[in-house]
């Protein structure tokens, strides 16, 4: 995935409760507005952040989200990293299948979030925690 140059320091938000998921959403929205993403892209990114933050909380047992404004020379974007030290995802392909859930949700969070962003990278394994990096570029 293309990294781009960081503009400014990452803003971190711990994810330990439902309220923190709301805080992640608000933080992402603030940064997305500042980076001048269109309303549609803002909404998509905020929604993806909401899904991934909730996954971090529910399946990862809590973690942290880091939001950074990045620049790849042509466009600005927002990079969000969700990291937890939870049990990790054993079967990633299965977890990314639409409608598959172990938690009673719709099973669209992870796969849907991937469709909502421009770049999606996931590092995980059984017992290794999960680290998801997403980027949304401005148009």
């Amino acid at each position, binding site marked *: 995935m293309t990294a781009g140059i960081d503009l400014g320091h990452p803003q971190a938000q711990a994810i330990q409760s439902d309220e923190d998921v709301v805080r992640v959403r608000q933080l992402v929205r603030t940064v997305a507005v500042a980076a001048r993403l269109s309303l549609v892209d803002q909404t998509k990114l905020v*929604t993806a952040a909401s899904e991934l933050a909730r996954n971090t909380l529910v399946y990862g047992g809590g973690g942290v989200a880091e939001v950074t404004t990045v620049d790849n020379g042509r466009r600005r974007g927002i990079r969000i990293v969700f990291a937890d030290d939870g049990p990790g995802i054993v079967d990633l392909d299965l977890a990314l299948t639409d409608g598959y859930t172990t938690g009673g949700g719709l099973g669209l969070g992870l796969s*849907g979030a991937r*469709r909502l962003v421009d770049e999606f990278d996931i590092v995980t394994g059984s017992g290794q925690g999960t680290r998801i990096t997403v980027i949304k570029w401005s148009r």
Partner: protein
Amino acid sequence: MALSAEENGRLTGLLSEHAERVVQRWTEVATASLRGRLSQAELRRQVQDLHRSMVEAGRGGSFDLESESAGELRAVLAELSRGRARQGFTATETAVSVYGLKDVLLELLESDADTALRDYVAFSSLVDQMGLFTFESFVRTREGLIADQAEQLLELSTPVVKIWEGVVAVPLVGTLDSARAQVVMERLLQTLVDTSSPYAIIDITGVPAVDTQVAQHILKTVVAARLMGADCIISGIRPQIAQTIVALGIEFGDIATKASLADALRHVLRLTGAETARRQPRRES
């Protein structure tokens, strides 16, 4: 009160020379005041951070919290205060962790006769200043928490309103978490019974983002209303929400959705209008 360069140097020397002892005693004093509500390891880490940033500030030329060299110290104190406020400690319990340094310094200075008292008085006021700064940050965070809670309370008010004969509407505003979704569902179902309305409009104009959890809550509410014989229409689907829902892959199935509340009401009136029109001749005869 600012420290003179000489005092500054002595304090820095004292702190770095007796680093281990200062951290150890300071942690002990702080632990005693918190009566075990924070683990010693955690406290020790905080005290170490404080000690380290104080030495840095001293080496940088000034302990004064307004000065540039104390930037790190300010950050550590603010972080400590934020943490304590979130964990539910009182302002005093928070400040005492900082004031604990005084006791430690007094112990160190007692062995050093000459300038001891003067130094202690000077150092003491410095520590007071740090404590006050801590206090201030603590209160600011508290105020922030209160403001957040007030906002959440505002979000909690979810009225179910009757907007036409046989039509109730739920304008959802803000975040729809599980607890709130439950309240909304209960109120809607109760209002459907109370007003014996066959139609309900769930308006999501005020919901900033519809993710899978929000969608699931709405779907469950619709299914529950259907079980009671009421039809639900979801309105307030703005362009950006529609695109997000499509990308997420959420399907609303055969549930009627409209862009605005007005569209939804028109839709319902058309349905009910047809019914009343059919009934009218019967009533006349």
